[in-house]
């Protein structure tokens, strides 16, 4: 079966790859582009650790057929830091001990970014709702919610 050519923007950079029919975006990002920041968790849409932004909208990369992003913009955690500096959300996660094992963190950060991009000063309930599709088995969510609120309020260390 022949490979399918696929071009899209990955963190602001044009990429061109060849995918097998039925390949999901998570596999394309990790195995063909080498961006290991989105993680494989459940493959079912239940855990959210593969979350990425497609044209600014939060999507689950494991449930996205790779070729549906042709010509579109895909943002992952790898594109979040600004040069040597962490993104304020990343800084806030570190300050607030919002990561323990860290496996959910890429998805949490993308879900948080999707929220803050359209709602810069969310309420606590809105933060809880925004990360409701992301499962964390370590932190009990409170430090994560606090970190996102801290980032929204500009309360992050330099």
């Amino acid at each position: 079966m022949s490979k399918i050519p696929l071009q899209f923007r990955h963190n602001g950079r044009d990429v061109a790859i060849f995918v097998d029919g039925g390949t999901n975006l998570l596999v394309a990002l990790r195995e063909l582009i080498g961006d290991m920041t989105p993680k494989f968790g459940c493959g079912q849409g239940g855990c959210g650790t593969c979350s990425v932004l497609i044209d600014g909208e939060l999507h689950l990369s494991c449930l996205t057929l790779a070729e549906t992003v042709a010509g579109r913009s895909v943002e992952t955690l790898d594109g979040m830091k600004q040069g040597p500096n962490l993104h304020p959300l990343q800084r806030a996660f570190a300050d607030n001990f919002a990561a323990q094992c860290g496996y959910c963190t890429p998805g949490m950060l993308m879900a948080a970014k999707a929220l803050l991009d359209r709602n810069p000063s969310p309420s606590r309930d809105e933060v809880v709702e925004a990360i409701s599709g992301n499962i964390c088995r370590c932190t009990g969510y409170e430090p994560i919610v606090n970190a996102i609120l801290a980032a929204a309020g500009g309360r992050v260390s330099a």
Partner: protein
Amino acid sequence: MAVTIKTFANASEAAGALSSDRSARYLGGGTLVMRALNEGDVSISTIVRAQDQALTRIDASGPRVTLGAGVTFARVLAERDLAFLHAPARSIGGPAVRNMGTVGGNLFAPSPYGDFTVALLALDATVAVQGGFGARDIPIEEFLQARDRQAGTLVLSVSCTRPASADAFRYRKIARIKPKGGAVITLAAHLPISGGRIAGARVALGSMAPTQIRARAAERALEGRSLDATAIAAAASAATEGTSPSDNALGSAWYRREIVGVHLRRLLSGQE
């Protein structure tokens, strides 16, 4: 195993490709079909897609509301004219799933999923499908009863009549995890009031049978009555009639039968 992807510009070509190939599945938002592929479902060898704008159209201006099959729950939530469908749309998944999952795909979501379809069943929706023999409209109840045989047909849109008042349509999803979790059971009721009495009661249940079903005995208990404590008690005690729930990780069949009447009573009496 690699699958063949067939992308079409319009829905009727996609419907043709779908009806002529038993191993073809239509890809909407991906939350069902990509999940099946990730789990190694070898029965799917072809994925059919359509980039037809008609499939993502919302017509919510008049009394009759039509949602293209490819409309996502996020778009339902963004539409002020669809306020009566916001509770069911919001009850599905987290934000990412709502950005992906579609109204048409939800019709095929197996129990315990398919919450939006419970709402559509209570609203007596019509499903527009296109098969090998052309397009036709099917009442949603008929569609669901034959759902296993619908794989070769493409759902184009669903439509329903807007409830006369906000109070006439009620929805409740019972989940162990909030704000997001799979349903233990899902309930929806459409109770149009005419001259102080219920005329055309429809009560729909999710996770109480292999597909979403109507609680006909509960509907009979409400029909022609005013929505008072006696009618509500009669409907609640009849809620399990005709149901056949099963056990899963979210709840046992026994538990579902035990709670369905309780939650129907709360839904009908407007309790939180």
